[in-house]
């Protein structure tokens, strides 16, 4: 009896790794995985992550399997006989150290290129700067906001034609962006989940961050602080606004269509709600009721989706996502140089 109970315990040990692996397998399905990648080169970091996850995953499965096997087979055997304890075994120690070092070395070598692309003036970045294709933007983190500076026509930061903003980082799509990251007070962390960018802002240092938005995406995504920086850390939240290359997006028209859709869906739902009270208790009442519930669920889903789309479109409209980056900069410059109260 005792013996069997011990075996049961080993199965409990087995449940932990099985549960962990299962979570990873189903995670993408439930949206527990990465946020949408809207950057041109974020997939490289995702690949790096997957590589490390695979290595650690395999190691995890092997060690757990051995653990569970040993506990299962040897539990409850031969009472009064202690397990043997090996103090030193050079072979195992050296083997383990070499194996881990080799794996770490592989990871280190594989990531060099990605690191360089994001932090340093490698050839590709230099070429982009020389060809005036890259955009330089100053981001100054402070408790508790992001102060953003765009160079004016001269392309230089710190000159009278700078354009200043706060919390909203506007970038063009399909062009490399170089962020000059500084902090005026404490450590902050410049985190763009959708661009796979996360970099600490350190007072007294100017740190380069390179990234690029995908060519076909315009819209707005989160900019957050990922380093606990004080009481207002929660509100160091901004947005990255990606502007299209050509002003082809008809956001105003889209918003009007979505508004109409919301009205239609609301009416449809109201009609279905009225029908439900009219249903009599005939033979097929149950079937009718079931169908009605299905229709109503579908209508509600449509309405919610339309409302979400509308809110998103309205925010995009407010942020000027339908303009090109150049047009937006001109507008921002005009607003900054305002000599009248609207």
């Amino acid at each position: 009896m005792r013996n069997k109970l011990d075996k049961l315990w080993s199965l409990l040990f087995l449940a932990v790794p099985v549960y962990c692996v299962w979570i990873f397998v189903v995670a993408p399905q439930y949206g527990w995985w990465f946020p949408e990648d809207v950057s041109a080169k974020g997939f490289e970091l995702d690949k790096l992550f997957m590589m490390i996850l695979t290595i650690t995953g395999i190691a995890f499965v092997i060690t757990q399997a051995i653990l569970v096997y040993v506990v299962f087979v040897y539990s409850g055997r031969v009472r009064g006989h202690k397990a043997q304890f090996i103090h030193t075994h050079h072979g195992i120690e050296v083997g383990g150290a070499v194996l881990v070092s080799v794996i770490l070395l592989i990871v280190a070598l594989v990531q060099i290129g990605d690191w360089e692309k994001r932090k340093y003036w490698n050839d590709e970045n230099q070429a982009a700067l020389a060809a005036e294709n890259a955009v330089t933007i100053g981001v100054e983190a402070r408790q508790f906001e992001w102060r953003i500076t765009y160079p004016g026509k001269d392309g230089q930061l710190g000159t009278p034609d700078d354009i200043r903003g706060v919390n909203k980082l506007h970038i063009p799509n399909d062009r490399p962006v170089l962020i000059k990251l500084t902090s005026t007070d404490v450590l902050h962390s410049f985190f763009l989940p959708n661009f796979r960018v996360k970099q600490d802002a350190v007072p007294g240092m100017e740190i380069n961050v390179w990234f690029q938005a995908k060519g076909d995406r315009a819209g707005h995504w989160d900019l957050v602080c990922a380093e606990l920086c004080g009481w207002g850390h929660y509100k160091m939240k901004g947005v990255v606004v990606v502007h299209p290359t050509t002003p082809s997006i008809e956001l105003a028209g889209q918003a009007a269509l979505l508004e109409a859709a919301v009205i239609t869906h609301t009416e449809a739902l109201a009609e279905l709600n009225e029908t439900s009270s009219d249903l009599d208790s005939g033979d097929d009442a149950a079937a009718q009721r079931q169908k009605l519930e299905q229709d109503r669920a579908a209508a509600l889903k449509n309405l919610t989706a339309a409302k979400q789309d509308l809110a998103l479109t309205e925010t995009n409209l407010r942020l000027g996502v339908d303009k090109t980056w150049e047009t937006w900069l001109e507008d921002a410059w005009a607003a900054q140089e305002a000599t009248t109260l609207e």
Partner: protein
Amino acid sequence: MTHRRGRLTFLLCISIVALSSCGLTVQPALVVYPVSEEFGLANASKITEPQQVISTAEFPEVWKAQIQAALQMYFGSPDVPFVLGSGEEFPTQTLRTGRDLFREHCVHCHGLYGDGDGPTAPFLNPRPRDFRNGKFKFKSTPVGKKPTQEDIARVIRIGAHGTMMPSFDLPWEMDVEALAAYVQLLAMRGELEGFLIMYCHEELDLEEPDEGMDPDDVSENFDTIQSFWEDAEDAVVKVGATETLTGKDLEESIAHGKKLFGDTAKGNCVSCHGVKGDGEGPDKDNYTDAWGEPLKPRNLTLGLFRGGDRPVDIYLRIAAGIDGSPMPGYAGTMTSDEIWDVVRFVRHLRYTQATDEDKESGSH
């Protein structure tokens, strides 16, 4: 046996924890606005003349209760805010939204009653604004007038660069207008409190505490405060028309602005802001603000303009003055063109220091 005892101890511990946490949740409800212990209603003043502060410590309980009752009658309570008789201007839902936003984002600095004494306040320099004397610095109306709600909303949106007031510019997540309305309510409430304390101090006799305040006088005070705020929209300073200058015109304008900046008969900005505009003028240590804190003139070379750095913002600071500070309005002393010249000079200052340093480092 030992097992059972262990289990009993465990249960006992659990129940003690549960009971004590129940006790913690029963907190006194925040029903009414308290009466401040002391109240200063002075303006910005010379540092040698400390502002007059009225202490309510000696007030009889009857007066305090009356003040509290009056505040409750006109403005409700922190939980149920309203402005008596202004349901249209201050809809209930707007005030509730504003109240919730204020409690979420503002309360830890500005305090629950808007007295600028939240938990983080002692650590900040400058101190968070105390709304109780109804003075706001960065607005489009002259010194002595109230800001418009739009002015308050703008400060919430852009923050006050150079202070601990950050930008709250995520309009799709937060109804800034509602928040501004609630801030106005807090300011009106604070000012009424101040007026009533002043009234008790001056009109009532400590020897006869039971006489108390005359309700008509109270309502008169409330009406006065309300009319102050109603006048704000009409008091907005007229901004003189100008053009955006470039090249030589700009240089000339900046040079003229510099002259006016130093002219003791015109701007006389140098007396406080110094010849370089770095806030090192001869009068720099002579003033306190309306909240009783020593106030240094702004260093204009840093490019940190608390009320915003658009030309029109700086125009307003110069033309209308800054309420609660010794900065006067110059609308009467200078023409709008002259003010615009000073604006261009002041906006240019942030680049002068950099270029001087560049020149120095270049010559080495």
